[in-house]
């Protein structure tokens, strides 16, 4: 027995440890980034310090005093330049070594990347300068023996700075995950050996009894064994009002206990909790690919070697046909071309926006499955809303009480409610609840007889009560005194009216309906304003469907759709050539959600719904659909801006670097400017992606 227990403990602690390692690894990742950032900044400062001196001393003839101290081709200048060569080597060794090792590693894999280009550019500049310095006699003209150590040093420094800024900005794009992880409780109070002890949440085991006091965070998922309370579950289920919990009810980790104290048994810990699932889904989505990126992947496979080829072609053309000093021009052009090309901006364009967009969704209770869902969602044309539970609350409530002159509302509702207590019909519960909500105390029925297809006949408080449809009233010859007109009007509004007769006299009507959620109408208007066709699908009859449609402003209603035909109806709309989204609230909608181009599951953060849908809305409001589509449009807009920017940058930058403007305007780009442009372009891409975070729903 004891050994079995120990075995169980070991298994659980392994599971727990995984959670620990995940938590630790995200912390460590942040630490690693910070370390990398600091190291890059040190490299930049060293490069910048040497670079300032190098830049001035490369062109001493531009400065009044230096001009006299270090005239061209003087010995003193030669020594200064030799010193610069050594300093540049130090910069290569300290600030730029990672470019060279990176290039070498890539080369070993027969691939090339940004490191290759920077290493080649700065390396070529250094080697040329050193040869010019040591063996000036091999060059035909004195001008050619100028050195370009400034290019080596300043380019390395600037690219280091660019990388550091990139790293900072990149850290910001993944803040959403950090916030989600931050929802997790840090500690839990569990009962061990009869004592309450505080332990780190990672050490909670399945089966532990956890104690939660008012105002505390519930650490893991579980089931209440003692006590009761109201719990704020908005972060996981989207329910904005606190939910009443009693013994045997489930509680979810990371939700907040409001009023009472209770004990619960842990059922899911570590990576199995609802929150952990949500975090994992967001991480997966952020790591997915947007379909448009396929073009980039094809291009980037050829990009870097192509740039190297362009640089060589540039060198050849300038050397063969260019003006004197040909060698210097050819060298500058080749080095500038290598440095200006930015494969990074191209590669980062979509992942950065995707990470930000998916994170933005998560923080607003919208879980997006991945890049594909995002790209399809922005192109949607038609959106099908399931009626029950999506547009409406999905639960009938008592909406109208009509009384005839001889009775008062209180009496009729008290008696009707009392009778319905004995019924199991879903509409009955609505009447009971309605009566209780109006402060009535309900007595029990003395006899109860359900008349199938008609209603109920019952005796209560010594009176005979009939509750049911028109048929029942006709059968029992109850005069209705014009109540039919009211009933028909209620039915036209999509409500279910039921006649009540007491002691053979018509007492009135109680009407029950599944009411529209507060913000459904507004959300549907927004969807329409966004250019989407909104269609309602319901299993109810056409009259009810149309009534709800009128209330929320939907003209196209597909009524009397059987559950198994939902997917088929989605397909029919797709056959009209449209991109169709389906919004449904649960498992019975799963086939339709899967059939739709984008399936939205609404009002839940549970794994089943997440699995069936492309986009899961934790909150139950249709506003989430509006927001999800807005986010997808904003994100894809951002992706296209980034891609366009990165492509245009390279498409314009490369010819300019190659000197295409020189024959017309005499403009030749300096390698230093190229380095600034290159660093700037990748930082711009990330900054643009971060701009998404400032998105607010309109």
């Amino acid at each position, binding site marked *: 027995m004891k050994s079995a227990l120990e075995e169980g403990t070991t298994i659980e602690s392994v599971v727990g440890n995984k959670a620990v390692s995940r938590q630790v*690894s995200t912390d*460590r*990742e942040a630490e*690693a*980034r910070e*370390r*990398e950032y600091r190291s890059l900044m040190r490299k930049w400062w060293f490069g910048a310090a040497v670079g300032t001196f190098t830049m001035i001393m490369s062109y001493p003839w531009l400065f009044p005093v230096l001009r006299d101290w270090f005239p061209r081709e003087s010995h003193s200048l030669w020594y200064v330049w030799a010193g610069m060569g050594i300093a540049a080597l130090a910069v290569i060794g300290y600030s730029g070594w*990672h470019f060279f*090792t*990176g290039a*070498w*590693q*890539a080369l*070993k*894999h*027969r*691939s*090339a*990347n*940004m490191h290759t280009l920077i290493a080649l550019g700065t390396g070529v500049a250094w080697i040329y300068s050193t040869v010019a310095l040591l063996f000036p006699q091999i060059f035909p003209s004195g001008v050619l023996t100028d050195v370009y150590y400034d290019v080596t040093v300043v380019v390395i420094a600037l690219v280091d700075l660019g990388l550091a800024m*990139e*790293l900072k900005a*990149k850290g910001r794009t993944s803040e959403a995950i950090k916030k989600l992880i931050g929802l997790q409780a840090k500690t839990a109070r569990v009962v061990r050996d009869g004592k309450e002890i505080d332990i780190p949440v990672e050490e909670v085991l399945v089966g532990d009894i956890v104690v939660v006091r008012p105002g505390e965070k519930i650490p893991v998922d579980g089931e209440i064994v003692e006590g009761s309370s109201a719990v704020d579950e908005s972060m996981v289920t989207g329910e904005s009002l606190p939910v009443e919990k009693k013994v045997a009810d489930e509680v979810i980790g990371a939700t907040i206990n409001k009023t009472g104290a209770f004990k619960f048994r842990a059922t899911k810990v570590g990576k199995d909790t609802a929150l952990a699932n949500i975090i994992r889904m967001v*991480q*997966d989505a952020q*790591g*997915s*690919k947007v379909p448009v*990126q396929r073009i*980039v*992947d094809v291009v*980037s*496979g*050829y990009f870097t*070697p192509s740039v*190297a*080829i362009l640089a*060589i*072609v540039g*060198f*050849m053309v300038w*050397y*063969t046909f260019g003006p004197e000093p040909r060698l210097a021009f*050819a060298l500058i052009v080749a080095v500038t071309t290598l440095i200006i090309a930015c*494969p*990074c901006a191209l*590669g*980062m364009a979509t*992942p950065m926006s995707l990470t930000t967009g998916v994170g933005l969704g998560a923080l607003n209770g919208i879980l997006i499955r*991945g890049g594909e869902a995002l790209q399809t969602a922005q192109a949607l044309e038609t959106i099908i809303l399931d009626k029950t539970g999506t547009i409406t609350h999905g639960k009938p409530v008592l909406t109208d009480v009509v009384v005839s002159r001889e009775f008062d509302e209180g009496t009729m509702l008290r008696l009707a409610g009392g009778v319905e207590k004995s019924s199991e019909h879903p509409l009955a519960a609505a009447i009971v609840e309605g009566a209780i909500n109006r402060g009535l105390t309900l007595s029990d029925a003395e006899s109860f007889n359900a008349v199938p297809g008609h209603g109920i006949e019952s005796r209560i408080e010594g009176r005979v009560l009939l509750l049911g449809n028109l048929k029942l009233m006709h059968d029992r010859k109850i005069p209705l005194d014009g109540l039919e007109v009211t009933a028909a009007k209620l039915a036209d509004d999509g409500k279910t009216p039921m006649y009540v007769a007491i002691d053979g006299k018509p007492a009135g009507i109680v009407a029950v309906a599944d009411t529209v959620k507060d913000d459904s109408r507004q959300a549907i208007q927004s969807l329409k304003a966004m250019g989407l066709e909104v269609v309602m699908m319901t299993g109810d009859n056409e009259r009810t469907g149309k009534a709800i449609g009128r209330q929320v402003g939907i003209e196209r209603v597909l009524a009397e759709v059987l559950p198994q035909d939902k997917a088929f109806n989605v397909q029919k709309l797709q056959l009209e050539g449209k991109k169709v989204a389906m919004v449904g609230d649960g498992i019975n909608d799963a086939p339709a959600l899967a059939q739709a181009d984008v399936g939205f599951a609404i009002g839940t953060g549970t794994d089943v719904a997440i699995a069936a849908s492309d986009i899961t809305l934790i909150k139950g409001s249709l506003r989430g659909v509006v927001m999800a589509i807005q986010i997808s449009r904003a994100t894809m807009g951002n992706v296209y801006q980034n891609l366009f920017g990165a492509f245009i940058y390279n498409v314009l930058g490369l010819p300019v670097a190659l000197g295409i403007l020189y024959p017309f305007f005499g403009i030749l780009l300096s390698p230093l400017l190229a380095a600034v442009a290159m660093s700037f372009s990748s930082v711009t891409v990330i900054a643009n992606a971060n701009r998404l975070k400032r998105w607010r729903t309109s």
Partner: protein
Amino acid sequence: MTWDKIVVDIAGLGLIGFIVWFFWLVKTKGVKAVLTSAGYQEQMVLVKGGYTPDVIVVEHGKPVRLNFVRQESVVCSEMVLFPAFNKSARLPEGETVPVEFMPKEPGEYEFACQMGMFKGKLIVE
């Protein structure tokens, strides 16, 4: 055209030819993943300036487990993506991270870092 120009142009063309051959024409032979007793086709993948090995051969219909070990701090490689299998994984430095999936159809599938700088190929036979 003077002799020096001819030399530069010939050297340039030679270099271009070399680049084309080196980066695009040479095909690397893949490493075949080993079938373990657990029924997985396993392969260790080193992440350092690229993926080693970067071409991995597996059989279809059997689960694959690739154990990635990242031995560098460059941010580029902190994630690996298998778009065809809808899989991705974060690779904390120095940790072994297994990526498991089931290749159903034979074919060639790419895996890469998020920016597509590091690339590898999975050949499913």
